[in-house]
């Protein structure tokens, strides 16, 4: 174990000398990543006439922000607010519901706790798109159709299996002695959970928060199926609606794409480490 940690600090074998073949491959991938992004940004700054006639790789002759203005005047702020609400409530629901379940799975001696955990894990294999039909019918019967909770509830439920897998993994690393020390201080289960388990599973919790937030932020199929009004649109469904309205006005569509990506891009710039290690955590501890 300790050797691995040491190895993580310096991988001398990889840095022996440059590896030309790998460098070439990385260069090719760099082009594949950057060309679409270049087209995205430059086209969103073109006039529509130029976009219809010119070469998408050329630098725009006239730079214009009118596409962005058009998108911002078409209800973009409303989509953004809804998206923030959906993401925040989904993450809150997932954390509040899953922390006690994970704690019971890790600490309870009962056999059924393990059984419940297995049921949750089977949920890993149930892809969200498959349940749209029954969810559409059920949400309708609950009277929630075309509301933000209609998006939040199933999104949160489908985030639970991964969340539990990660939380149980990080809670199992807490040593028995710490529980005993807390118990000697006379702490009840509630205090043990809040003052010992939650703080010590911080890395698991941040992985869960990042992953759930990304999924909720980018979710498309639940909002598509479960809402329809303009004022219930989130970024993804709003983007879809705008692009069908704009038709061949490709610069306007791409300006909307850029705007929809800006909040996450800012988050990426500000908290790259947290985002990256959060996502990395999904691959296994």
């Amino acid at each position: 174990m300790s050797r691995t940690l040491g190895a993580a600090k310096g991988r001398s074998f990889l840095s022996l000398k440059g590896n030309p073949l790998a460098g070439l491959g990385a260069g090719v991938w760099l082009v594949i990543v950057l060309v679409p992004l270049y087209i995205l940004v430059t086209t969103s700054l073109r006039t529509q006439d130029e976009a219809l006639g010119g070469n998408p790789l050329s630098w725009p002759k006239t730079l214009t922000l009118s596409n962005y203005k058009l998108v911002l005047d078409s209800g973009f702020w409303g989509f953004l607010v809804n998206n923030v609400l959906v993401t925040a409530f989904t993450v809150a629901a997932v954390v509040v519901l899953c922390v006690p379940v994970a704690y019971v799975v890790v600490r309870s001696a009962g056999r059924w706790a393990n059984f419940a955990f297995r049921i949750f894990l089977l949920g890993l294999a149930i892809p969200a798109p498959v349940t749209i039909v029954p969810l559409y019918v059920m949400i309708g019967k609950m009277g929630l159709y075309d509301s933000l909770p209609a998006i939040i509830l199933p999104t949160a439920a489908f985030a639970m299996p991964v969340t539990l897998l990660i939380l149980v993994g990080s809670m199992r690393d807490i040593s028995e002695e710490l529980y005993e020390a807390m118990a000697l201080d006379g702490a009840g289960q509630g205090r043990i959970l809040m003052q010992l388990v939650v703080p010590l599973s911080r890395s698991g919790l941040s992985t869960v928060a990042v992953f759930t937030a990304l999924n909720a932020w980018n979710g498309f199929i639940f909002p598509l199926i479960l809402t329809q009004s303009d004022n219930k649109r989130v970024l993804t469904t709003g983007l879809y609606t705008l692009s069908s309205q704009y038709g061949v006005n490709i610069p306007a569509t791409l300006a909307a794409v850029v705007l929809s990506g800006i909040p996450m891009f800012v988050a990426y710039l500000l908290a790259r480490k947290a985002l990256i290690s959060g996502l990395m955590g999904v691959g296994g501890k």
Partner: protein
Amino acid sequence: MSRQAEARSAVEEGGPGRAQGGPDGQDQRGGDRRGRQEPGSPARRSLAARVGRPSPGWAVPGVLFFAVFAVAPMVYAVYLSFCGSWGGLGTPQFSGLSNWTRLFQDSDVRQATVTTIVLTVLSWAFQTPCALLLGVWAAGREKNRAVLSAVFFIPLVLSTTAIALLFKAILDPNFGLASTIGPWIGFPDGNIIGSPNGALIAVAFVGGWQFIPFHTLIYQGGARQIPEVLYQAASIDGCGRWRQFIHITLPQLRHTITTSSVLIIVGSLTSFETVFLLTQGGPGTSTTTLSYGMYREAFQGFDFGYASALGTALVVVSTLLSLLMVKFSGFGSMRSTREGM
């Protein structure tokens, strides 16, 4: 005996309660602990009892929530699949196997199955080697690799929807880049997305462009956990970089490969958004995957019963596939990705 050691052996005696200590890191100390066990002292018993166990009741809200919004829809889908054709009005009537017999005779379903499998294989074959190589490369700590990796991960900030719309613009045969690069890669008229094979490749490529960064990240994390001693030993034995990659990196990453492959395969089996936004299943039905076909049956054909049968079949297949992959790779019996080191 110190208080800690006392406490530890008290837990050892906790009978059924100690079940949790076993499977994880605590085992490593088990050997020397066991020697010191002194059974039966009441003081120790009471300490073990005082640590206590959380009441199972704590899990109830979470379990109920999951039951209502994830398990119940799945069960309801299975029920609806036995209800014949149902448009969402009135009460669905149980009518036996009619949807299922129709499913197995439906030539559209057969074609969609083939399309889904081809797309899944294409996605896996594109994403896994790229992400593996990029991830191992990005695991190096050099400054230039760190900078390039930061660029590689930019697609992660865009949603599937945004990426699909971006590539729809790029692949537009009249105004997009497709008219320029199409002729180079065998589409003289630039209409990549208008040809059956081109559209399928486009969907797989766009999925790769979106997800390779994520899988690169997973492999980067995995590669950084490989103990360096292995490489040192190999270079002392005169192994070159290529043999180190084949004999150390690949075997050490096998569980990462399984995790990433399961995610890619289940993801592509049920991929919906890219097809929905980029090709609408076309041209013709050449990119109609099972999940897009299911969406069409449900929300364009308003046959919820038949769509549910399709959905149920898809869940069964993807669950079986992931279980098989996990089983054959021995991942299920592993507690840590570095077990045996």
